[in-house]
């Protein structure tokens, strides 16, 4: 069965610094990987996905993610964090049709 792990419950970053939110996965076959963001009291929004092709995927709001097959990772990155990036971030993997989410990582960006 597929699974997703987000090892950090919380990530704290100063505004303007680069950020990384970690994700590792387990799935049989080729992975379909996703990142979603949830702002307070709002629904989940799609950020980016990896299906095939380049290992570096670019998405919304300046975010990108790097697919690493050997490490089974799909870390979310941004070169320069904004205070408005503070939110809950979810990594997800598709296996057998359904999409399984990680437990989420709370990103806090301080001025």
């Amino acid at each position: 069965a597929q699974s997703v792990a987000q090892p950090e419950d919380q990530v704290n970053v100063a505004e303007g610094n680069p950020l990384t939110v970690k994700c590792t996965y387990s799935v049989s076959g080729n992975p379909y990987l996703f990142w979603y963001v949830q702002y307070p009291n709002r629904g989940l929004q799609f950020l980016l996905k990896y299906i095939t092709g380049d290992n570096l995927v670019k998405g919304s709001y300046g975010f990108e993610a790097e697919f690493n097959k050997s490490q089974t990772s799909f870390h979310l990155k941004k070169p320069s964090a904004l205070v408005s990036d503070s939110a809950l971030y979810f990594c997800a993997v598709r296996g057998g049709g359904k999409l399984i989410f990680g437990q989420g990582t709370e990103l806090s960006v301080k001025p």
Partner: protein
Amino acid sequence: GAGVSQSPSNKVTEKGKDVELRCDPISGHTALYWYRQRLGQGLEFLIYFQGNSAPDKSGLPSDRFSAERTGESVSTLTIQRTQQEDSAVYLCASSLLAGALHFGNGTRLTVT
């Protein structure tokens, strides 16, 4: 419609009552998902519909939970004999076959 619509947005019910939650997916989306999100926690997969295939019910936590979908349209999630542990936000999402999920705003269920 423009997005995934869920109703009601909030539901308060007494322990032991049945509740029905509704989801209207984006037109043309063949896949529909239900998730549960308890306060401060991640998304727990409940059930997945894809076209006319048999639904994947592997995430339903007990036989008190059931869901139906009419073709590629509306879905209802029913919780019978609600318990306080059922209190959560229930999220519905739809997608094309292997595409990104589009989420509704959820139904916040409170069981008193």
